[in-house]
C-alpha cells in the first residue's frame, strides 16, 4: 500500500514537472522567436522578421511592444493592411502609446488614406506636444487633404521643434502655392533648398511652378532643369533600392545604388552599400577589377567625408588588385597628402604619373607637393606638363 502511495506521489510530481517544463518550453520558444525577429529586422530581412514575431505572438499574444515591431516589419515589407491590423491590436492593448499611433498614421499616409491618418496624429500631438514627427506628418496629411491653412499652422509648430527642416519648408511652400500666395511660397521653397540635402528635388519644382505663375520664365526654366536632373537620381535610387530589397544578392543593384549615393553625396550610406558590394563581390567571385572598383569607391567616400586615414586601407587593396591603375595611386596620394604624410603622397603621385602620363591632374597634384617641399624645379616642370595636357585635352574636345 505504502509503495503504491509513493508511486502515486512520484507520478503527480512528474506531471507537475511536465507542466512546468511545457510552460518553460513555450516561453523559451517565444524568446527565441522574438530574438530572431529583432535580428532579422535589424538586418533588413523583413519577411523573416514577420515570421519570427508572428511565431512569438502565437505563443504570447499580448505584448504590445512586439506587436509594434511586427507591424514595423510588415510596413517595411510594404504589407500595409497587415501592418494596420497589427498596430491596431497593439493600440487595443495600450491605447496611449504614441509611437504605435504614429506608426499607424504613417501606414495610412502610405495608403493615401489621409483622413484616417489625421485622427491618430491629432492624438499623438495632443499626448506629446513635442513629437516633431507627429506634427510633420499631420501637416503633410492636411496638405494632401487640401486643408492648406491648417497645414501651415501645424507645420510651423513642427519647425519650432525641428528647426531648419527642409521637408517642412517645402510642405509650407506647397500650401502657399496652392493658396496662390506666391511670395510666401518662393520664400519657403528657397529655405527648403537652402536647408535640404543636395538631392532634394521637390522644392525646385515648387520654385519652378511659383516663378512660372508670376511670369519669371527664365528662373522657372532653370529650376525645372535642376528638378529633372535631381529627379533622375531619385528614380535611379528607388529602382536600385527596390532591386536590392527584392534580391539582396543582386550585385548590380547594390553597385547601382552605391553610384547613386555617391552622386547624391550621401557618403554614410554609400560606405555601407559599398561594404555590401565588397562582401558580395568576394562571395560571388567577381572579377578583380570589379572588387578593386568598390574598394576604390569606398576610399573615395571616406576621403569625401574627411576621413583620409580610413581611405588608405581600401584604396591600397584596390591598388594591389589592379597595380597598373593610375587612378588608384592618385587617390592614395591624395589620402596621404590629406594626412600630411608628404613622402608617401609624392611616391603615390609619382607612381600615378608613371602609369598614366597623359592625365593632367596627376601632374598638378605632383607639382603642388613638390612645391610644398621646396623642389621648385620639379614643381615647375609638372605644372607645365599639366597646362600643356589640359590645353591638348580642351583642343580635342
Amino acid at each position, binding site marked *: 500500500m505504502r509503495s503504491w502511495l509513493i508511486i502515486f506521489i512520484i507520478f503527480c510530481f512528474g506531471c507537475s514537472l511536465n507542466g512546468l517544463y511545457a510552460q518553460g518550453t513555450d516561453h523559451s520558444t517565444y*524568446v527565441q522567436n522574438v*530574438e530572431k525577429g*529583432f535580428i532579422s529586422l535589424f538586418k533588413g530581412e523583413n519577411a523573416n522578421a514577420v515570421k519570427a514575431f508572428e511565431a512569438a505572438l502565437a505563443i504570447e499574444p499580448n505584448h504590445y*511592444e512586439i506587436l509594434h515591431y511586427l507591424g514595423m516589419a510588415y510596413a517595411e515589407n510594404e504589407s500595409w493592411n497587415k501592418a494596420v491590423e497589427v498596430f491596431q491590436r497593439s493600440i487595443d492593448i495600450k491605447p496611449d*502609446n504614441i509611437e504605435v499611433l504614429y506608426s499607424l498614421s504613417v501606414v495610412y499616409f502610405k495608403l493615401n488614406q489621409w483622413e484616417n491618418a489625421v485622427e491618430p496624429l491629432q492624438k499623438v500631438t495632443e499626448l506629446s506636444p*513635442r513629437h*516633431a514627427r507627429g506634427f510633420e506628418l499631420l501637416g503633410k496629411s492636411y496638405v494632401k487633404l487640401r486643408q492648406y491653412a491648417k497645414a501651415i499652422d501645424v507645420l510651423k509648430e513642427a519647425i519650432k*521643434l525641428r528647426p531648419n527642416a527642409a521637408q517642412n519648408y517645402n510642405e509650407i511652400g506647397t500650401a502657399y502655392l496652392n493658396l496662390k500666395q506666391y511670395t510666401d511660397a518662393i520664400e519657403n521653397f528657397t529655405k527648403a533648398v537652402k536647408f535640404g540635402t543636395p538631392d532634394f528635388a521637390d522644392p525646385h519644382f515648387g520654385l519652378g511652378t511659383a516663378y512660372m505663375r508670376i511670369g519669371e520664365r527664365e528662373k522657372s526654366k532653370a529650376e525645372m532643369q535642376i528638378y529633372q536632373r535631381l529627379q533622375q537620381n531619385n528614380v535611379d535610387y528607388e529602382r536600385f533600392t527596390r532591386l536590392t530589397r527584392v534580391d539582396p544578392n543582386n550585385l548590380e543593384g547594390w553597385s547601382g545604388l552605391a553610384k547613386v549615393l555617391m552622386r547624391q553625396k550621401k557618403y*554614410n550610406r554609400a560606405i555601407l552599400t559599398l561594404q555590401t558590394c565588397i562582401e558580395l563581390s568576394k562571395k560571388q567571385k567577381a572579377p578583380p577589377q570589379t572588387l578593386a572598383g568598390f574598394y576604390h569607391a569606398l576610399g573615395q567616400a571616406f576621403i569625401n567625408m574627411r576621413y583620409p586615414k*580610413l581611405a588608405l586601407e581600401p584604396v591600397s587593396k584596390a591598388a594591389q588588385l589592379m597595380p597598373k591603375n593610375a587612378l588608384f595611386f592618385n587617390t592614395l596620394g591624395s589620402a596621404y597628402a590629406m594626412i600630411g604624410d608628404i613622402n608617401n603622397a609624392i611616391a603615390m603621385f609619382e607612381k600615378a604619373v608613371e602609369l598614366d602620363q597623359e592625365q593632367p591632374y596627376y601632374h598638378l597634384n605632383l607639382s603642388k607637393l613638390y612645391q610644398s617641399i621646396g623642389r621648385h624645379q620639379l614643381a615647375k616642370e609638372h605644372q607645365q606638363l599639366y597646362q600643356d595636357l589640359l590645353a591638348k585635352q580642351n583642343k580635342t574636345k
Partner: protein
Amino acid sequence: MKVRLFGITFLLLLLTLAFHIEGDAEPKENKMLLVSAGTFTMGSGNRALDERPVHKVYLDSFYISKYEVTNSEYYEFWKSLQEKNEKTAEVKPQHTPENFTHLPHIGNWPERAKKFPDHPVVGVSWHDAKAYAQWKGMRLPTEAEWEKAARGYSNNLWPWGNALKPNANTAEDNDGFDNRLAPVGSYPQGKSFFGAMDMAGNVWEWTADWYSDVYYFHSPKQNPTGPTEGSWRVVRGGSWIDKLTRCGTTFRFYLYPTLKTSFVGFRLAKSVEKDKK
C-alpha cells in the same frame, strides 16, 4: 529497497539541479572611472538625422563604470532579492534576467552567473537595470554622460579612434567572438579616452533618458537629462549582433524599456558629490 534506491537517485537529481551553478573564475573588478567636468561636443552633423545638430554640452564630473555590469555582479543583486522574497514569502522572482535556452553562449539564469561570470548581464529590462543601479547606490548614465564617456573630447567614430580594425565585439566576422557575447574588457585596445571598455559593441547599454529624435535641438546646455516623456529609452553603443557602423559613439538607438533581449545590458554612473569635486 527499490523505492529507497529511487528516492536516493531522485534526491541526487534534485541536488544536481540545485547546484548546477558551477565555475570558479574570479570576476573582474568593475571600477568606477572619473569623467572630469567640462564641455564636450555631442552629436554629429553628417551621420543620422537624430544626431543633429552638433552641440556643446557641459557636464559636471561623474563616475562611469569601467565595464558593463556583469553576470556575477547582477547575481549578487538578484540573490539579495531572492532572500528578501523568502523572508516576505513573496513568490514572484523580481528582476530575473530572461533565459536564452537557444543561445548556449548565454544560457539560462542563474546558471550563467557562475558559468559566465564576466559576461555582461543581458535579458534585463530598463527597469531591471535601474533597480540594480539603485541597489548599488548609483544610477544609469544619462545619454550625454554616456556619449562623453565614449568619445571623450574627440570627433572619433568609435571610442578608440577612426580605424576600422575590430576593437569591439560586433557582427563583423573575425573579431574574436563571432556570433556570441564576449567577457567584458576583452578589447583593451578599444577603450575610450576615459578608460571605459566595450563602449562599442558587445551589448547595447540602457541609458536613463527617454528617446526623442529632436531632443538635441532643445536640450539644456548643462547636464541634460533627456526629455520628460517618451515611449522608448535610449540605448547606446551597439552590440554583438550589430555592424560596426551602428556601434559609433554618436549613434542613437531606442527600445521599449520593458524589453529583455540578448543584446542589451547596461553600465553604471554616479554623480560626484559637490564637496568632493
